[in-house]
């Protein structure tokens, strides 16, 4: 029994890190543009399909395929920002409507191009690690490592670089940041592109673990928003923490309770946290 629980704890951390990477995009975009970009799930799906196409159809090696997908999704993110998101800055409702509309458009385009047939990548890193009676699929461990590195890398970039500090200052006081010479429009575009590229990376790595279809993004973006709220919107490390808490509560909950209500276990946890800390686990109490 203890092996079952420890195994699922670790699996929860791995699954949670995927929620965390999308949650990071959600929290960054909200902090700097004032919109909750629900289309990040669709960007994740695009990243997954781009990786599948480059890797399985065109025969690229996996790592360059993921990089290619991240760049492609980043470019799409930039075009969407210029064409749409820049007109919704600071307007939660308009941003929400645009992002929901984009989900339909992206899903329909991918459906038309690749149909609903699930795509399952040629296995990148097959097999499992056997550690003390526990069996952990190698690909999940590797993907989790990449996600953790990216999230901590983003945290250090935000706290140690000029651009990162500019982003923080803008999130705290936009007017003061603009008066201090920060080019706010460009900063917001950079954050939107970075968030979409992160989602593309999430999709690229997701595709190495799970089969993909045009609707995979919608479920994950909801989890990501949940993780971001659980952590407290605006917290970078919190996004990871929120994702992991969600992943672990779903996995452990499914072991002891019916797995048919897996999503509910995370939500119950979220409600309990918000009752005690309305601004989230890592959010500002003030």
């Amino acid at each position, binding site marked *: 029994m203890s092996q079952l629980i420890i195994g699922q704890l670790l699996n929860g951390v791995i699954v949670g890190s995927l929620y965390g990477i999308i949650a990071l995009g959600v929290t960054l975009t909200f902090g700097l543009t004032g919109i909750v970009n629900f289309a990040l799930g669709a960007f994740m799906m695009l990243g997954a399909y781009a990786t599948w196409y480059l890797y399985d159809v065109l025969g690229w090696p996996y790592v360059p395929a993921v990089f290619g997908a991240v760049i492609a999704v980043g470019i799409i993110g930039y075009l969407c920002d210029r064409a749409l998101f820049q007109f919704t800055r600071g307007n939660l409702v308009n941003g929400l409507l645009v992002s929901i509309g984009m989900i339909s458009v992206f899903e329909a385009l991918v459906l038309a191009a690749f149909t*609903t047939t699930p795509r*399952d990548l040629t296995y990148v890193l097959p097999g499992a690690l056997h550690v003390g009676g526990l069996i952990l*699929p190698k690909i999940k461990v590797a993907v989790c490592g990449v996600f953790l590195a990216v999230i901590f890398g983003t945290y250090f970039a935000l706290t140690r670089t000029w651009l990162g500090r500019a982003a923080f200052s803008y999130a705290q006081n936009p007017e003061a940041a603009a008066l201090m010479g920060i080019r706010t429009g460009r900063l917001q575009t950079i954050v939107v592109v970075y968030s979409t590229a992160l989602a593309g990376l999430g999709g690229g790595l997701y595709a190495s673990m799970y089969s993909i279809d045009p609707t995979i993004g919608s479920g994950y973006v909801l989890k990501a928003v949940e993780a971001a709220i659980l952590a407290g919107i605006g917290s970078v490390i919190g996004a990871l923490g929120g994702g992991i808490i969600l992943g672990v509560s*779903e996995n452990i909950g499914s072991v002891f309770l019916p797995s*048919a*209500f897996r999503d509910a276990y995370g939500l119950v946890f979220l409600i309990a946290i918000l009752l005690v800390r309305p601004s989230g686990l890592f959010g500002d109490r003030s």
Partner: protein
Amino acid sequence: MLGSKGLLLSGFMALGLLGATNVRAEDVVKIGQIEALTGPTATYGWMSAQGAKLAVEEINAKGGFKVGDKTYKLQLTQADTRGEPREATVQFRKLMEENVRFVFGPFLTNIFNAIEPIAKQNNGKFLLFAGATSAHSALGKPDHDYLFRTWNWDAGPSGFGKLMVDYLKKQDTKKVAMLFQNDAFGKTAVDIYTALFKDAGIELKVELFEPGTKDFSAVLAKLATGKPDFLFPGYSDAVLYDIVRQATESGFANRFFLVRGSIGPALKNKDAIEDYIAYVPKYFEQAEKTEPKVKAFIENYKKTYNREFPYDQAPLCSSSCYDHVHMLVQAMQSAGTVDDVAKIRTALLSMSYDGLWKIKYDKTGEEVFGFDVVHVRKGGSVEVVKYDPTND
């Protein structure tokens, strides 16, 4: 301004146009299709929609079909329910308002349940060819003369479920773990197979999962503690690839039994599985080599859609799809009418159709057709056992 002669002329012209429209309308038989073409449950509807369109194009390309001394063409309207009951009722009402007399679909149980009351109100005015499992219990009930079910029933003497469970019993199976989606069909399937396994003396443990789940590690680990001989996962490839990979990679299970879905996941993990026993309406990879009709269908599909043939999904063409459009046309010709749905229903119930599948309906309107049981073993060797209940 127009004078009285001008008005008269305009009136004649309008009447002439109206007359022409009537002639055109009489030459066209409207058929509708109501399926999820987008959304997470679109796999079934998408393939059905492709097959129906292909049949319509084939028939129209030959100049249509003759009933009596008139030649008709088919006009197909495909409505996308997105797998959502509310959307389905809107789309279905629209088809009824447009006087569509022949509707193919739905495959999904939740969609059939949603449109069933509206269909009942229109009983006698149209025919519905639904693949949904829940349509089974509505067959033969009063005010359900409109209904045909285009999939063979899991249980019962001609059903594939009992034959499948018997096949499993021959593998010396004592315990099975069933892992299905928590939705209308999942629950129906649990009810059907709980009884079938009980009758066969096989112990069954059931777990349901949330729609959209991709990581099954926790529930697989839980089921593995009961040490089942076979894992019985369902029910579409969107989850089967993940379940089979995760189960084999983490050592939770390597023997699988399924009654919906393709053998694609088995072939992908052929070195990790021990057994993978699947009900497949037709094993197209083999049938293409031995059945000329299947070969022609595949070639036509590739030419029409300009894409690779989806061998995994093609067995879904057995439901409310390609053969059923051709069969309907044959029934209209045999009944000598394109309007009298009661006569066409009688013709359908009394005929058998030999297309991609050999199809007939039982007296309640439920379909009986031949199918394959495909047994994939470690290494990828495939054994196909054919069943043809239409001969019974």
